[in-house]
């Protein structure tokens, strides 16, 4: 198989495959679940074959011409490969975890369909080299999310799903206007053709709006905590691995890889990112709902990633790339731990939990590991990414922003420990053992990977370095 | 020539006005429909007068005839609806026909 075939398969196997899941369920439910796992595994495996290409640092472009410049273009470069490996892998783990988690729920067909479609669309988005196709996959993902958030069908849940969909759609629509403005001045949607173009400030504003809404950055973030009503698997998928990274990825693809930012934008975006990070961390400190805390924490960490990319220097970019990986692993781990806890205790409020380390030690340790990674404690992976981002910030001359970002890190430390103490330590208020093996396994694996990714950081760091060199081609 | 046209058109406009006035102020549905008929007269007058003035009477005439046929069809349908409405509401008041709103 050549590179193009692999990439096309990566994108279309899950997308088309997802629609066969309901068909598979006609045979039997286990077959359906197994088929979903197979699809997830295929999606996770396929991009791994692209790794050699990624390390080589080249890019391959695949193009199918359509009218009006709406060509279907795939860019296969280190950035895309990096992102696709991270997303598909976490997605795959989440499918495995789902086997246990939604075992007793209704609408499983829809669930698996949407999850696999979600992952597939993510692959599509990651490789897309045309603004409109980025938007296209972006919206497919939004639809999947909307259904998944409202998965339990309760009235309020569905309302929150609608809120999430509306806010992200609003942002995306505004972003589309930005894309079209670019089209208006360049007559092209093709990212590969427009590299190095300086785009107008309004377009930047419009596009940023979309990215912020999708990546849940202040002030368009409140849908994300509300989206916590979804099944935990979904929130993990949404918050940790895939969804919120879309906006960031698009930032890298659009503003780093392709266009140049005009005027003061390179100085404004870091400030926005840091404010977002700080406000969300503060909110996480105040919140008491387990999943909402983690969701706010996600918003906060996303701020870091934005910060890194917006600095437009090597340390920042490769820091953010690593951050995507590390945060994906660790935050997915945290959410899935929360999932195990909530699944077992049927409670969401951390004040009502306690002492669970006795009955679910693996979950507790995994939670702690992932928390360390999110905080940025070596040797966990999160340390390197956060460190690089801070380095980049200072290098770009924003010492104050770096200080605020570090203050945010202190807040992160504070609330994560608060949660850990409240949930796992202290008096046991509810006894709830770890039940499902597949869930615990996934959580432990994620925690372990967070650690391994830190200890053997040089491998992902190399990839991030290649990717940075590739997208930051304008950095001498 | 223009004077003739002016004459006819002015009267056609007058008819249209009368019809519209009826539609705007009257309450009885049949009366309303009579208003519509008045408007139709204005329209057919305008059509024919234009043809007449432009020495195109034959064509205009055929248009007017077709228009009259349309009118008949329309009247038949409308009156059928009115009768049905009357059967339902036992009233011909247009103000009672405000169930659909918002």
């Amino acid at each position, binding site marked *: 198989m050549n590179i193009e075939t692999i990439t096309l398969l990566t994108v279309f196997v899950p997308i088309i495959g997802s629609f066969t899941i309901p068909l598979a369920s006609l045979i039997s439910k286990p077959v359906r679940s197994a088929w979903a796992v197979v699809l997830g595994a295929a999606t996770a495996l396929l991009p791994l074959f692209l790794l050699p290409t990624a390390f080589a640092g080249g890019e391959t472009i695949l193009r199918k011409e359509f009218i009006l410049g709406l060509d279907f273009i795939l860019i296969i470069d280190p950035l895309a490969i990096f992102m696709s490996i991270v997303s598909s892998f976490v997605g795959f783990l989440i499918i495995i975890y789902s086997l246990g988690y939604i075992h007793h729920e209704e609408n499983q067909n829809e669930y698996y369909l949407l999850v696999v479609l979600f992952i597939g669309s993510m692959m599509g988005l990651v490789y897309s080299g045309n603004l409109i196709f980025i938007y296209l996959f972006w919206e497919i993902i939004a639809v999947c999310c909307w259904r998944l958030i409202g998965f339990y069908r309760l009235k309020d849940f569905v309302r929150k799903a609608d*809120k999430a969909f509306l*806010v992200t759609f609003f942002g995306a629509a505004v972003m589309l206007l930005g894309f079209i403005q670019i089209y208006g001045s360049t007559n092209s949607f093709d990212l590969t053709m427009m590299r190095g173009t300086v785009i107008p400030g309004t377009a930047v504003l419009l596009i940023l709006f979309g990215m912020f809404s999708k990546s849940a950055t*202040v002030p368009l*973030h*409140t*849908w994300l905590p509300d989206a916590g009503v979804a099944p935990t698997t979904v929130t993990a998928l949404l918050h940790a691995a895939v969804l919120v990274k879309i906006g960031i990825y698009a930032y890298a693809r659009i503003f780093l890889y392709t266009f140049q930012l005009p005027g003061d934008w390179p100085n404004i975006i870091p400030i926005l990112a840091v404010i977002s990070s*700080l*406000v*969300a*961390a*503060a*909110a996480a*400190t*105040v*919140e008491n709902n387990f999943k909402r805390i983690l969701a706010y924490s996600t918003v906060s960490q996303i701020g870091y990633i934005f910060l890194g990319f917006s600095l437009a220097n*090597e*340390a920042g970019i*490769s820091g953010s790339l690593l951050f995507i990986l590390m945060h994906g692993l660790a935050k997915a781990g945290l959410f899935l731990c929360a999932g195990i806890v909530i699944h077992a205790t049927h409670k969401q409020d951390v004040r009502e939990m306690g002492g669970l380390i006795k009955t679910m030690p693996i979950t507790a340790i995994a939670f702690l590991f992932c928390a*360390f990674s999110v*905080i940025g*404690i*070596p*040797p966990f992976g999160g*340390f*390197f990414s956060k*460190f*690089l981002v*801070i*380095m980049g910030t*200072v*290098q770009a001359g924003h*010492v104050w922003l770096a*200080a605020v970002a*570090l203050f945010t*890190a*202190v*807040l992160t*430390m*504070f609330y994560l*420990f608060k949660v850990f*103490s409240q949930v796992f*330590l*202290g008096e046991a208020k509810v006894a709830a053992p770890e039940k499902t093996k597949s869930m615990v396994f996934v959580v432990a694996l994620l925690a372990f990977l967070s650690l391994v990714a830190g200890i053997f*950081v*040089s491998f992902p*760091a*190399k990839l991030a*370095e290649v990717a940075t060199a590739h997208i930051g081609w304008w950095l001498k | 020539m223009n004077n003739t046209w002016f004459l006819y058109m002015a009267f056609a406009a007058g008819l249209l006005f009368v019809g*519209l006035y009826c*539609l*705007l*102020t009257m309450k009885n549905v049949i009366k309303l429909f009579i208003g519509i008929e008045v408007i139709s007269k204005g329209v057919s007058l305008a059509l024919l007068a234009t043809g007449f003035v432009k020495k195109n009477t034959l064509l205009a005439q055929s248009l007017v005839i077709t228009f009259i046929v349309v009118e008949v069809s329309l009247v038949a349908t409308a009156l059928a609806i009115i009768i049905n409405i009357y059967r339902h509401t036992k009233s011909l008041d*247009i*103000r009672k*026909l*405000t*169930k*659909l*709103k*918002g």
Partner: protein
Amino acid sequence: MTPQTLLWPILLPALAAVICFLIPRNMKLLREGIALLASVAVLYLGFALFSVKNLEFRLPWMGNGINFELRLYHFSSFILLGLSGFLFLITLYSTVKMKNDPRVGEYYAYVFLSAALANGAVLADNFVPLVFFWEGLLLTLYGLITIGGKSSNRTAVKAFLISGFCDFCMILGIAILWSITGTLTISQISVQPEGLAVTAFIMMMIGAIGKAGAMPFHTWIPDAAIDAPVTFMAFLPAAFEKLLGIYLLARITLDLFKLEKGSSLSLVLMIIGAATIVFAVMMALIQKDFKRLLSYHAVSQVGYMILGIGTAIPIGIAGGIFHMINHAMYKCGLFLSAGSVEHRTGTTELKKLGGLSKDMPLTAFGFSVCALAISGVWPLNGFVSKEMIFHGALETGYPVFAIAAWVGAIFTFASFLKAGHSVFFGPRTKEVPPVKESPAPVFIPILILAFLCITFGVFNKLPLVNFIQPILEGHVEAGENIDFTAHALSLFNPVAGISILCLLIALCLHFTGWKRGDKKAYLASEPVHKFPVIKQIYDLAEARVFDLYEQGIVFLRCFSLVLFKGIDRPIDFFFEKIVTKTGSAFSGVLQKAHTGHYANYLAWCLGGLLAVAALINLLIK
């Protein structure tokens, strides 16, 4: 020796940590054996590397100038040796003390992991590995404190947060330094502390002194003294963290930045040092718990080191570094002897203890030596290093710092008189039944440390010439005297005189207090405690008003609440309420217009016609 050897001090303890963690719970002997073996091996490595002195190991790591660089030279080899020595002693001690702890496997794992990380931090010649190892210690810090039991988590979190804060400051400092110099390799950096570099210096300094436990980053240490196992106290706060913190501080002031004598930065350091000395020792004086008293001293003594290094005068710096190693020894010894007492009696409250010198003579001896050393009694090592610091402080031209140091010396001795008097001497108490001397693995480390205290004091040339002087070589201007052994033990100079006077004052204070307090030694500090004004300050301090951590937590909570209520909720309110309400308001008004009246609709149409006609008329040119 190949450069790869430098990986051994890191990998070996790490491996030992993993093995200790994995050994099943009931195979105690095996675990202890392996632990001892490993610590001996590390100690051997320490000696071996100390004899090598110069070795570099470089490996590309993450790009961007971030390489895995280790460098062994005289300073780091000296610290490395110290670290491995303490590791061995603590391990030996732990074989008895931690025998019955349910989480002993974890304990050894954390200890060896700490050793690995500390070794790494000392050897690192690149900021990234440095921070990696340095901040990694937070993990073991957290883990070790939680071993202490139920209530320890709060303290563990506190320790974690404070240290984490300091480490983040250091990261910021490093980042600034990087942006100034463009390199991360420590040995290549040397900048003048001007402009942004001042910020970098202060940030890195916070990292270093935070690790060492200076004020105001010390408050977790007294708490940990209560909650955490005593071996932990001897291991991390007393020995490892002091060594690391002061090592880094010395590196910062000597290598990375050219700290000028009398510069404002030097002044800052000295103020921090002096404040730490005085306030911590005042707190130590009134403590009623043996371990807690020791822990405050652990803080107070850091002040001396910082003061010494902050003088930016060779003798002061040398004194600071010497004090660091001395302090590690006697404070470790003190904690271990406290542990020994606790091991046998089950308590460390001064009130309950008394007259143990008969039952536990070896422990009492060890304690006494260490206590005298810490108090700076001639001819023990504490005396030597403190004298050097006094000299240094005086030479800066700010005698106030020397005075502060002397005040510290007074109360140090007074509090140790109180502690020793109430625990080992004086009458027996009823609470504690007769006890035996602790087993050999417990008292041997104490005795070794006591012995070292004496050795380093009497034969102070040995450490000063072999360890300290090489560090300063190349950092002082040519021709300046770096032979500090000259008046090391000399009693006949004004400085030494004042020091001895201080000790006498302390003795007087103790006896006055002892007499006043019904001849109960643990009440000996009460006169000072009850002194007007000072009493109020003490009360406030006991209520943790001066604990920046507590205030910081309150601040964090309030700050978060303000941001949450001030930014997050209003945004949500906007989406949830304002947008929806506006939407339905618009919708409602428009719906109201659709009354269902035919005339109404017709009027719209006609109006629309007129509007369209007018608009077209207007737009036609």
